[in-house]
């Protein structure tokens, strides 16, 4: 059944090709000048792009496919570790595809009407969406490093097109920040991969992990990889693209971006770092990762609360949640013995966050264009994933209790306290996001069975039930003991209280400027941008100086050349001397030769 394995990442490609070909055919049929073809690009075939992957994720048993001629030797496989990631990724992509069909309904209509810009955007979206998906699926399935890197790169670059979908300054900024950081990340990853793979001539990810564990400079390789994937996974300091790119991207794209694609960074860590290998000696790095993760969790919470755009708030929340996830990974590094137990909660947490964040992003769109459903039904459904994310309900609660269960007995129990404190921040963020959604809510305008609400509803349900369907481990669902509930829920309660207080303060102070300071989305980005601009200006100056010096030098050389040529032309006069003194010269030559003969 390895055919299915090959089909999973290839099907989206075929879908893309299909769309492209149909477009080209339509174009050549209609000719360049006579009107534009009316073409439905986001059709059923398009929607089916993640289906084979979903099927594969549900396929019982492990599959492996090895291809000698694929690049440097391809090995794709589906094992227990990959299955949950594939499952929730495919599911979210499927739902987001459906959501996109509704979300882009307006653009589709305008494109059909022949509006150029809309057509352009829609085409780009229709082509790049499956491409991103293909990359994402490939990186999950790939076991050989080149395929993994290929998947990662394809996803990263293709997603750029999704981010800048809207056009305009904001979108360009978002896309730019995304691309710059992604490239920095790619560079770091490439360095790490090459270095570690080269040290043991490894071609597969498992070989890579062994290589890092065994290599002398393993720490450096691992650091490079951590930072490289950290760009995706929003390690604090490298996270700045998230709040810039998310608000401008179309909501379905934001959902997969935040739900699945950033998880690729985490998956990258899991695939490349020698987690659980005792002799790797990467404990210091583990500490760093944990520290950075926690720092990210808190900083993002504080910054996120100050945002106005709900998607920006959600982006910061992603940074915060990913920080928590990273801290767990860090623990896995610093205490390898804990890792086997930790993998399941990490997977669950990732799946939970992916689905929930997807649902939340869908919700942003839904709150703007609500379906014709009663508000009492809509808003609790909107709040459900939010509460889940803050760990008070459903999948979030279970994930949290699972973590607690694993960490409780270990030397890293202190982490739980911090995580709980971070959850307070998460709650605040959720409250803030909901509040902003409430403030920006729109009038009901569509049927509940329209693609958008349908996708949202499915996502909310699926998110709530993640532990039920996600095969994250053999342990089964770790239902929290009722006695522990309070211990698990208190951060959410504290957060809600805080949120209420803040709201009250804000309400009391209405009329004046809102109390919360405004931080521009992207925080450090502006610092980076300024520094980069400064450095670029300096470089440009230096280059200009060099250039002008080079030009001066060249000018001087040219001048010298001219002078030499003039001098040579002048030499022609010397030729008259040779003519006049031919005979004396002949005598002189004779004498010279005689002298030479005499002496030698």
């Amino acid at each position, binding site marked *: 059944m390895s055919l299915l394995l090959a089909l999973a990442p290839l099907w989206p490609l075929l879908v893309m090709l299909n769309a492209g070909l149909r477009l080209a055919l339509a174009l050549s049929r209609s000719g360049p000048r006579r009107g534009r073809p009316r073409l439905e690009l986001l059709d059923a075939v398009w929607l089916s792009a993640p289906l084979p992957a979903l099927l594969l994720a549900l396929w019982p048993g492990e599959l492996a496919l090895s291809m000698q001629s694929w690049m440097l030797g391809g090995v794709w496989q589906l094992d227990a570790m990959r299955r949950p990631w594939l499952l929730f990724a495919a599911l979210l992509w499927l739902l987001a595809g459906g959501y996109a069909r509704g979300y882009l309904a307006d653009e589709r209509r305008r494109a059909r009407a022949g509006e150029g810009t809309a057509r352009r955007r829609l085409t780009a979206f229709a082509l790049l969406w499956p491409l991103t998906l293909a990359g994402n699926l490939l990186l999950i399935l790939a076991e050989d490093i080149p395929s993994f890197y290929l998947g990662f790169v394809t996803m990263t670059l293709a997603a750029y097109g999704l981010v800048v979908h809207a056009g305009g300054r904001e979108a360009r900024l978002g896309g730019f920040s995304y691309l710059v950081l992604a490239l920095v990340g790619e560079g770091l990853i490439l360095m790490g991969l090459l270095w570690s793979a080269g040290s043991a001539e490894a071609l597969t990810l498992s070989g890579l992990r062994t290589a890092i564990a065994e290599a002398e400079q393993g720490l450096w390789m691992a650091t490079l990889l951590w930072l490289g994937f950290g760009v995706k996974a929003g390690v604090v300091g490298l996270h700045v693209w998230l709040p810039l790119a998310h608000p401008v991207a179309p909501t379905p794209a934001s959902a997969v971006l935040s739900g699945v694609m950033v998880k690729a960074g985490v998956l990258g860590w899991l695939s490349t770092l020698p987690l659980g290998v005792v002799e790797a000696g990467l404990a210091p790095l583990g500490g760093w990762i944990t520290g950075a993760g926690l720092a990210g969790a808190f900083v993002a919470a504080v910054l996120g609360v100050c945002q106005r755009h709900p998607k920006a708030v959600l982006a910061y929340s992603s940074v915060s949640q990913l920080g928590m996830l990273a801290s767990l990974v860090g623990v896995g590094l610093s205490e390898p013995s804990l890792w086997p137990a930790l993998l399941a909660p990490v997977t669950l947490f990732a799946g939970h966050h992916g689905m929930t964040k997807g649902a939340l992003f869908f919700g942003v769109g839904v709150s703007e264009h609500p379906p014709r459903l009663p508000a009492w039904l809509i808003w609790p459904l909107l709040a459900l994933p939010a509460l889940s994310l803050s760990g008070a309900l459903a999948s979030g609660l279970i994930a949290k209790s699972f973590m607690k269960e694993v960490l409780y007995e270990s030397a890293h129990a202190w982490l739980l306290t911090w995580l709980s404190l971070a959850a307070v921040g998460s709650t605040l963020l959720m409250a803030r996001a909901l509040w902003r959604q409430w403030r920006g809510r729109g009038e009901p305008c569509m049927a509940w069975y329209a693609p958008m609400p349908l996708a949202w509803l499915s996502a909310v349900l699926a998110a709530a039930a993640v532990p039920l369907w996600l095969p994250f481990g053999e342990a089964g669902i770790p239902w929290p003991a009722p006695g522990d509930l309070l211990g698990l829920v208190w951060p959410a309660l504290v957060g809600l209280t805080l949120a209420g207080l803040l709201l009250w303060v804000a309400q009391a102070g209405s009329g004046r400027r809102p109390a919360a300071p405004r931080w521009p989305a992207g925080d450090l980005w502006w610092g980076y941008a300024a520094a980069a601009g400064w450095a670029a200006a300096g470089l440009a100056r230096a280059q200009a100086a060099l250039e002008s010096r080079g030009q001066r030098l060249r000018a001087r050389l040219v001048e010298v050349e001219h002078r030499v040529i003039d001098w040579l032309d002048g030499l022609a006069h010397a030729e008259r001397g040779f*003519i*006049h003194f*031919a*005979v*004396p010269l002949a*005598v*002189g030559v*004779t*004498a010279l030769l*005689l002298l030479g003969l005499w002496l030698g």
Partner: protein
Amino acid sequence: MPPLEETLLAAALLLLAALSLFDRHLVRACSWFVTFALVVALAWARLGLVWLALLELVLGALLTGAFLFHALGMTPLVRRPRGFFARWHDPLPLTWRLALARLLPALVVLAMLGVALAALGEGVGSLRPAGFVLLGLGLWAFALHRHLLRRLLAFNVIGTGIFLLLMSLAEPAALPAAHGLVITGLVVALLGTALGALLVRRLEALEARHGARARTHGHPA
């Protein structure tokens, strides 16, 4: 000690050569040269080289003289030179400083030759010193003058000097070879002179036709 007669002959040769080379009057100089060639022929005859003497008489004296006068534009009928040889004098003024400066190449060649001759040992007769001095005179004149005709004269004198040297150096066994060389040399000298003379005439005709008195003035070098 060479016999008086020979010494006299050598002295006459040198005198005539000097006259033909340094006489400021061109026609006279050419006449001196013809006389010089006759004396050379005499000298050959005296040495018993009859064939050489005859050749010298015909080629060196008669034909060369004829070509020289042809270059001057003189025929038996027209006794005054025509064309741009109407000015008979060398266009370059003869100053002592110039003369001394131009002496240097001649001296160098003479010195070299002297060294070689000294190593070859004493020759008999005054043939060798005469040739030596002729060579020097000719070289000096050649370096000194820009005038084409004078250079041709100098060339002929140098050639004669070399012939004398050659014959003086040649052992009896080598005489045929030496003869061959001298005869070739004579023919070459004649042809050179003839070419030069014809050229001069041709140039003159060209300049007369184009009216361009430019460039040449008979001293192309």
